[in-house]
């Protein structure tokens, strides 16, 4: 491999291209001048169309197969591997899907993976956070193919329109022949009309200080409504069952960097701070003046959240 060409694995649900793909393309364009996108799924014409319009994309490779419908790791990895040797870099956003499939690709290629890359220093050198973001490592890969998951908050997305890449259809045979060992059973997705947590401009997050799921609904949700915000939570609130798992912001949950992050009743364990400390503006409301969340907050208010938050909601409505 002499020429530098990147392959980005599109994040999608067969109907829509997810915005995280745009951040991964931005990272890819810093690795190589040419970037292709793989849209692997079933019934993905709209996704492939959307991918072809992304600024900076050379070619969209569309692979249609029932075996790819649910993005299972085994068939998807096999499909990526069938074209991997054409590329110097293989990237995916560091979403649940990207994290699931790319290490499988890397190990089969006998190369290392660079996880959660936040900065491309050069084509073989990258920055990535370690220890819950308490340190930033600069690492260099000597492998022939660099397999990378991209922390989306580290890269401004490229424009979703303006491009006109060709769409090339390829066979899904590689996926089909690797589709027998696992099967899809079902999915319970949280239904919401709100912006997606990782793409939201404003996030309101609740923690253990709320005391119950009912209080989360009574106090946090109306504030999020008033701000048009996505809903988040600390691990403590998720573990206590106040909200579903996909609300969790933190080292092992979602990493977010909105324009405004409002932390309500969250003490601020380092694992939570790891997931939100790159937000542009952080507001913390907590009754404990010693809470570590105040160390990262731009605006802190020591107050009883059960009176302060409704007051804030009212002031904004």
């Amino acid at each position, binding site marked *: 491999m002499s020429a530098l060409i990147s392959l980005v694995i599109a994040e999608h649900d067969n109907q829509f291209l997810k915005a995280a793909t745009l951040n991964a393309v931005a990272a890819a364009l810093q690795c190589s001048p040419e970037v292709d996108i793989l849209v692997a799924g079933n019934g993905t014409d709209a996704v492939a169309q959307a991918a072809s319009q992304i600024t900076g994309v050379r070619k969209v490779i569309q692979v249609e197969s029932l075996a790819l419908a649910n993005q299972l790791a085994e068939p998807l990895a096999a499909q990526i591997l069938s074209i991997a040797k054409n590329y110097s870099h293989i990237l995916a956003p560091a979403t649940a899907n990207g994290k699931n499939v790319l*290490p499988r690709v890397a190990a089969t290629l006998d190369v290392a993976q660079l*996880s959660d890359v936040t900065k491309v220093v050069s084509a073989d050198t990258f920055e990535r956070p370690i220890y819950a973001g308490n340190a930033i490592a600069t690492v260099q890969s000597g492998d022939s193919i660099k397999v990378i998951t991209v922390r989306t908050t580290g890269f401004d997305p490229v424009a979703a329109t303006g491009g006109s890449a060709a769409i090339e259809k390829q066979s899904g045979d590689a996926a089909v022949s690797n589709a*027998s060992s696992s099967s899809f059973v079902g999915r319970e997705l949280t239904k919401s009309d709100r912006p997606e947590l990782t793409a939201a401009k404003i996030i309101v997050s609740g923690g253990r200080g709320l005391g119950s799921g009912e209080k989360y609904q009574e106090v946090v949700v109306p504030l999020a409504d008033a701000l048009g915000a996505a809903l988040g939570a600390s691990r403590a609130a998720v573990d206590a069952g106040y909200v579903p798992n996909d609300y969790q912001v933190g080292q092992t949950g979602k990493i977010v960097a909105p324009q405004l992050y409002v932390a309500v009743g969250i003490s601020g364990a380092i694992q939570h701070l790891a997931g939100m400390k790159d937000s542009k503006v952080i507001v913390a409301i907590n009754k404990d003046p010693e809470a570590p969340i105040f160390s990262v907050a731009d605006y802190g208010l020591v107050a009883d959240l059960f009176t302060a938050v409704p007051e804030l909601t009212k002031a904004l409505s």
Partner: protein
Amino acid sequence: MKILVAVKRVVDYNVKVRVKSDNSGVDIANVKMSMNPFDEIAVEEAVRLKEAGIVTEIIVVSAGATQCQETLRTALAIGADRAILVESDADLQPLAVAKILKALTDKEQAQMVILGKQAIDDDSNQTGQMLAALLDIPQATFASKVVIADGKATVTREVDGGLETIALTLPAVITTDLRLNEPRYVTLPNIMKAKKKTLEIVKPDELGVDIAPRLKTIKVEEPPKRSAGVMVADIAALVEKLKNEAKVI
């Protein structure tokens, strides 16, 4: 059914690490070390599967320095049957650990491997997936529920939009998420019992595994600090700041 559980010795999750002044890494001298929390969940799950009569033997494995024996003893105290330490002072990266675990899974003929979804030190989230690839068997990452029946593992996974359930043909690799279980407290009698269990020490060479690191760490730095914020007196002051100073609403 034999099950292999992999555990890593890491800086305790309550410790805020410091970057060394020469930027060569983080300072872990005299810092409290513990079992990676996700791996503790993996050990607990294996023990529950044994208590349910599904698993017959739990082999716990760690790769790293000689002090990893302490971590293995903890796993034995939770309920693992025997332990293997693959001893090495080298920088063991996820691909190397996956190769070590592959060699041991083959040797032990384990039907299932459970390990944490990520280690809280390097935050890589790779080893389980890499192991599944090297063994060419299916994987279920980020597990919040595991049911084993009829040669299959039915696993509920924590994914971005909520939960997803998949079924895997065994043998398979499962990586644990936070809500799979709550590990038990280790009791003194079990700590005493654990001291008598077998702990075998092998070298990577004996497994015929190439553990050479692929990634070179150029430097490690402190993240950029957030500039200190201000405390506001009341909601009116907060709204005023957000509107006129931060201009985010």
